[in-house]
């Protein structure tokens, strides 16, 4: 737990340096942030990815809908990497490695999030079972 926390701090510090540098630079370092990609299909993929990434400095907003500096920087990162030919899932994995699972709004079934999918399914099966039994009786 502690080790993980330290890793996260280290990762944020590493990322904050270049990001902070980028913020100090002129607009061209983040020029891709709000420039749509030329290929509409690729832009749609980028958009979908940005909508499922959390803006870490905002409260419950994705990087696709925030004016926060961090969101702007990350939009630039996503669009420029997409343009360079990386796949959305690669970018997501890269970000998760740096920032942890917290950055992705799309929890994967597995690891610690399997109950999210299992519990509703079990509950509904139970409820439907009860209903069927009740109907049989009458």
């Amino acid at each position, binding site marked *: 737990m502690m080790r993980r926390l330290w890793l996260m701090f280290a990762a944020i510090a590493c990322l904050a340096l270049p990001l902070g540098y980028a913020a100090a630079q002129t607009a061209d370092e983040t020029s891709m942030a709000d420039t749509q990609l030329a290929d509409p299909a690729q832009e749609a993929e980028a*958009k979908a990815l940005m909508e499922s990434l959390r803006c870490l400095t905002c409260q419950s907003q994705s990087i696709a809908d925030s004016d926060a500096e961090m969101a702007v920087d990350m939009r630039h990162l996503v669009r420029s990497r997409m343009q360079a030919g990386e796949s959305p899932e690669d970018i997501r994995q890269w970000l998760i490695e740096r920032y942890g699972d917290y950055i992705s709004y799309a*929890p994967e079934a597995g690891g610690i999030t399997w109950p999210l999918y299992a519990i509703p399914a079990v*509950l509904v099966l139970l409820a439907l079972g009860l*209903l069927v039994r009740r109907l049989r009786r009458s």
Partner: protein
Amino acid sequence: MTAEIGLAALWMAAALCMLQFIAGALATRSEGNDIGALTRPAAIVQGLLALTAFACLLWLFAITDLSVKLVATNSHSEKPMIYKLTGAWGNHEGSMLLWVAVMALSGAAIGALEKRLPERTIQAVLAAQGAVGVGFYAFLIGSSNPFERLPSPAAQGAGLNPLLQDWGLAFHPPTLYIGYVGLSVAFSFVVGALITRQVNPDFARAMRPWVLGAWVFLTLGIAAGSWWAYYELGWGGWWFWDPVENASLMPWLAATALLHSVTVLAARDALRTWTVMLGVVAFSMSMLGTFIVRSGVLTSVHSFAVDPERGVFILILLALYIGGALALFAWRASSIAEGKRFAVASRETALVFNNIMLCAILGVVLLGTLYPLMAEAAGDRVSIGPPYFNPVSAVFALPMFAVMAVGPILRWRQDSARRISKGVIVLAAVGVVTALAGALLSDAGILPILGLAFAAVIAVAAVMPLYGRKLSRTPMATWGMVLAHFGVAVALFGMASESGFSKETLAAVSAGESAQIGPYEVTLEGVEPLAGPNWTALEARLSASDGGDAVILRPQSRTFVQPVQTTTESALLNRWDGQLYAVLGQAAGDGRWQLRLWWKPFVAMIWYGSLLIALGGILAAVGHIRRSRRRKALEVRLAEQEADLLLVRRQEEAMA
């Protein structure tokens, strides 16, 4: 002086609430004592006192009395009057006082008006109401006193968050609170009926207006919140699955299930236990919503732990009330006699199935909202957002829509699949044709296309119950159902077309240049500074044209003075087939401006649909109340006739 009057009124209201609780509780314990007679007057006076306290707070905000801490930290003398007043509940203490006042007023309404149920049951209902109230008074006076004075008056107030200085958000919290409180009243009815063993159609009829009312207010509150997020946050999103939004959606889902279940109980005397259970769940969800929003647990579990006083208090209330209610339910559920039975093909089965689906969606939202908190407490941080909520809730929502289309054309108790087969074939054909058309003519995803198909099916199905009926003699409550179901179709249509067919253009343009969005060409004519009462702004002049006359749009980037904060004021152009949404972004530095433009087909249908749903709820409530009044009048007249007959017979006997 006003602050002291308010505080005194609050203390007295709290004392009366305690009295109401104790008197009602004692009355249920033994037959033949009169102490229960205290509950009604206590409830009425308590309501008036709580109203007085709230009026005092409004007055303090209206005159900006800076010697009161709450006013000094949340208001400012330079603010427009309307936002001074709405600022009274735009903060923690004020909103809790509003909650308590609304709750006390509903108690007063029960005390003054409710005459249908046995007196014992009403006393138990008021006792339950008192028990819930006492906790909130303790919370308010103990840890969130809105009338606290400063040692010396502040020179100037700190202002209200500019995002909240807006019509949509000013009336969004009170609307939701009225809904939450309405569910607490429904819960009190459930407790009263459980204690006095009166879970029957009469109880369902007495409780139904409160459930319907709560549901209407929740619907309006959620729609207002979503509309506010849509145009005020400036990114064109209308639902974010944000925990605060989920906190209002969960009680709504539970209330929707409860509403349908209570209708079955009133009409058919079935689903007794299930209705009681849903009453408990709906109240628990509104308590949980309050906890999530008010405890600060959202920002982070850790910040909650640093200043836990309020959060822990609400958490204790939550545990006490939900735990108590569930214990009472477990203890008394077995004493509820089984309701009337029904066949597989019957309207009851359809309603129960959809109740289960609504509860499943509620479970998904609940899990998705609380899971990150639990994970964080266990040392892991995860985010759960649209990629989880959308598909998982759709798994339950889609079958629910299908059954919702068929349910209203099924008969109560027993029906045959053969009788409704013609209707089902028509509905299926409508659905398949729409889905095919959507899949062939557009490149939208699977969920939007299914959404469109179900919107079409539900729209047709909604009016089917009117088929073959004489419209002028159709009961008002049936019209309410038709309207509400049609509203669901309209809202679903809006959601599906917005998420399936929206167009986005981001452009950096200098004056004179244009950008293309959907059917429109948008030209930036210029950007000019502007000043308002407590803000300055940069306003863009955009001319939008789809080949015809150009329309001018004026999106702003506003900077508020007190406190300093920048907000985007989007500009909307409404057309029958959609909305053009324009936002002015940052200056690019080289004389160009960032513009964010969206074309959102039929997006406004989301909120028009919500209004229809609420209107349907109002019609149903009014219809039911009128009908029960008429029934009461009829009973009175019958009783009078009987008495007359008896008198005549006695006279005849005396003559003979």
